[in-house]
């Protein structure tokens, strides 16, 4: 039963990811008063791509062709760990938040390799920048995660969320810091403005796009999908960790439904916020990114220290 729900939740995750992307695009268009594409446009794109005949660069080795599958399934693994509509699922016991970060690292590792595989300047540039930014983002993220982990004294996501849920409404200064840190990191990791611009293909500024420049067909589809999944994953993390209310603790149909509606609502709101920020902010220079991320790290650290100093009673 639990297993089924877990699988169902993962499937939901995968299937909802493009929707979130579509919704985000829609919001941005409205804000920039352009005519928005349909909400389901991302699904159409993916479907189209999977039907296409993939073209592969000559130098590309098996790394390049297998990377998309690895990246996608790694991201999928990460997604399966995160409670979407219900806590206390068997999948989240198999791997905790650290492992989840590990999955991201896994995906990134192969993405960067794929970027280097084709042997062009773009690929190298992309993977170099990607690795740089992520290696700065990872400690910041872990700082935020540790704050939660120490507060809930567990690294198991669903247990942690349950803990926050049952604790009721407690205003923890540490969580505020951690929240902001996680948001900053999420923006950086999912390659959104101001760190990276998913829409651009201007060589000097792009990071994520530079690596996947050579991809086409189903490979491109998988990678796109994976990044949409990642975006949603951060969204869900932020939503469910810091305001977990509504998530199902019992596996009854209505509870689950309620949980689903709740998360959709939260994500919608988050997406709007993100859209607004993306509209207002401009992309920053690459070498400003470390300041941005060290700020995120600082927030995470502050969160941790405030937890240790203010909240632990000895």
């Amino acid at each position, binding site marked *: 039963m639990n297993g089924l729900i877990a699988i169902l939740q993962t499937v939901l995750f995968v299937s909802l990811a493009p929707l979130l992307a579509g919704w985000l695009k829609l919001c941005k268009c409205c804000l920039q008063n352009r005519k928005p594409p349909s909400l389901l446009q991302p699904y159409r794109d993916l479907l189209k791509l999977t039907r296409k005949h993939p073209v592969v660069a000559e130098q590309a080795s098996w790394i390049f062709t297998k990377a998309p599958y690895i990246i996608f399934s790694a991201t999928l693994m990460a997604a399966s760990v995160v409670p979407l509509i219900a806590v206390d699922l068997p999948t989240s016991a198999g791997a905790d938040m650290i492992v989840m970060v590990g999955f991201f690292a896994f995906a990134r590792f192969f993405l960067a390799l794929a970027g280097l595989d084709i042997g062009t*300047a773009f690929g190298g540039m992309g993977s170099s920048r990607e690795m740089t930014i992520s290696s700065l983002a990872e400690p910041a993220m872990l700082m935020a995660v540790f704050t939660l982990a120490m507060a809930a004294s567990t690294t198991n996501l669903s247990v942690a969320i349950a803990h926050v849920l049952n604790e009721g409404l407690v205003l923890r200064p540490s969580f505020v810091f951690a929240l902001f840190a996680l948001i900053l990191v999420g923006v950086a990791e999912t390659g959104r403005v101001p760190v990276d611009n998913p829409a651009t293909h201007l060589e000097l500024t792009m990071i994520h796009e530079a690596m996947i420049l050579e991809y086409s067909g189903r490979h491109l589809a998988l990678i796109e999908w994976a990044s949409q999944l990642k975006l949603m994953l951060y969204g869900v993390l932020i939503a469910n960790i810091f305001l977990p209310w509504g998530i199902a603790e019992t596996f009854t149909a209505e509870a689950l439904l309620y949980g689903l509606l709740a998360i959709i609502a939260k994500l919608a709101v988050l997406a709007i916020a993100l859209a607004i920020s993306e509209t207002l902010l401009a992309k920053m220079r690459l070498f400003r990114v470390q300041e941005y991320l060290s700020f995120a790290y600082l927030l995470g650290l502050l969160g941790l220290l405030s937890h240790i100093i203010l909240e632990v009673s000895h």
Partner: protein
Amino acid sequence: MILILAYAAVLLSFASGLLALLMNQRDNLAALSRYGFKKYPNTIKDGQELVFCSLDEQRFPVLLKQAVFVLLGMSGIFAVLAGLSVLISTDIITDRISLGLPWLPWHVRFDGLSGFFFLIIGIAVSTVSLYGPAYVNAYEEDRHPFAALGLFTGLFVAGMLLVLLADDAFMFMIAWELMSVASYFLVAFQHEHPANRRAAFLYLLMAEVGALAIILGFGVLAGFSDGFTFDALRNAQLSTTWGSIAFGLALLGFGMKAGIFPVHVWLPEAHPAAPSHISALMSGVMLKVAVYGLVRFCFDLLGDVQWQWGVVLLILGTVSALGGILYAMMQPNLKRLLAYSSVENIGIIVMVLGLAMIFLDNGHPQLTALAFLAALLHAFNHALFKNLLFLGAGILHHQTHELNIDMMGGLIKKMPQTSLLFLVGCMSISSLPLFNGFVSEWLAFQAALQADVLDNGVLRSLIPVAAAALALTAALAAACFVKVFGLIFLGQSRSHHSEKAHEVTDKSMLAGPALLAALCFLFGIFPGLVIHLINSVSAQLLEQTMPNDSALGWLWLAPVSAEQASYSPPLVLLAALLAGSATFWYLRRSPETKTMRRAATWDCGFGGVTSRMQYSSGAFTMPLRRIFAKAWLIDERIDKTMQGAMDQDVAAVHYHLHIHDHSWPRLYQPIERGVNSLAKRVGRIQTGNIRTYLGYSFVTLLLMLWVVSQ
């Protein structure tokens, strides 16, 4: 019985060393055997045939090399057996060898800790001996005599094993120095390059200084006890001050060998100098022996540890880990890079050991066991993948005659098997899930996250920061090894050599790395196997084991409790495989899109994507170099050669980038200068004038007379 296995391992490695000496004795052997058969003609004919054809001009060296490595391999296997059996039987075996001083024979003690490191050494040595024969064939006999190489390899291994067996200060030091000196000769093996000579000198000098510090450390303990056996030293009653002094000395001594920042400088010099299978042993195993020494000294001999020591280790470890990986990232030379990354991994181990000390002194035995286990597990894993990577580097050097990663590229198509093995190594060392490197770091994080059980607020805030630094280290390591694998194996080949390179012909050279890669993966999926062994070590040493929550079954890893954290690699693997294969199958179902079309790479319409356009090592790390600019001494120059009218237009642009280690100008050169100037001053007393000399003895006489007449 178990001890016999251990002795057998030691003796076999000695034997392999001695056998290597026969390399130049072919003629004498031939003469001897001829004489022997003349003396006893009635021995079987085919025996003579065998002997003579084995003593044949061409065949003899090959056979001998194989024989040497077979002995070495057997010694490795025996070491593994001995280690396993003592770990499983969980008993402590002691013995005496009537060598050494008349009133102080060599005391031998074979317990879990020694057994565990025996296991590490055994695995490494046996893989190396699978790999060795093909590798050493590259050396011409007249320039690089195999006799020296084989002899000192055997002594080196024997020395390491003896260190683990030693149970008194005297034998420990002898074995320790045997290890150092033998490895010194191995570093100096290719001594026609001045750089190698310098490296060897530096290495031996630091080994000597370290050994002296260790002796002094033992001396401090011995000063408070009767005798030099470890039993006596265990019972030494030290004041906190003396204990801290002893700890400091041991840290200096073992740290120098292990390569803790800032006394690490010999590593990046020595490892590239030695033959690759030796650097594999040095980096993969010898550093672990140093860790063993530290653990033995602090947790076993000193007994009651202070949490302040733990803090020292924590800080030093963090600095080494970060410094190591940052320096590693900047190295274009593959083996230097690997050496620096050893500094990083040792840093991690030391840091987690510090954590263990902190928990121990604050009275949290379970967490102590957890941290201790994380440290030993990481030592084990590092031995596996660092060996793998060094052997891989050896293969690359063997095939391309290159170690500069900017000169390689595109090798994945030329050397598929090697590249696969190397990839496994890279993934393990950058601690990706499903590989062994991840497990130990995960446990380290778990240990660090328990910091809020501590009462001391400083510690509670210090430890998570260290953990975050660990995270940064891991991320940087991933970046570093993406660079390594990407530049070496992917893209287009950057030089003639890598253009011409091909897979190794002698598959035995791949067998060793393959075994290691398999183990890396195996212990990434089933870490329980090793953890069980380490638990028996900590049960002996700390009377405490890690509370692995067995409620979830043996497939699970739950260091503190299932509630707090759990990780089940097999299930993850299963799920990942399912997901991956499902998508794979789904997307490639339709026959017409199943095939892929090959096309030229997108060149922005300019045409001609050449290998020079690819990112180089310097380019890849440029962002990080700008971000962490303070961490290195960067010497970056761009020279333009001008030409044409009034030298206005640029003919060529030369880019120089040299990254230097801070510790040289800060620490080592001052010492060198000091000694030299002191020697210069002292030299003045040798004036060459006899009357001055007479004056010396005259004054000395008067002085002495005055002294005694007081």
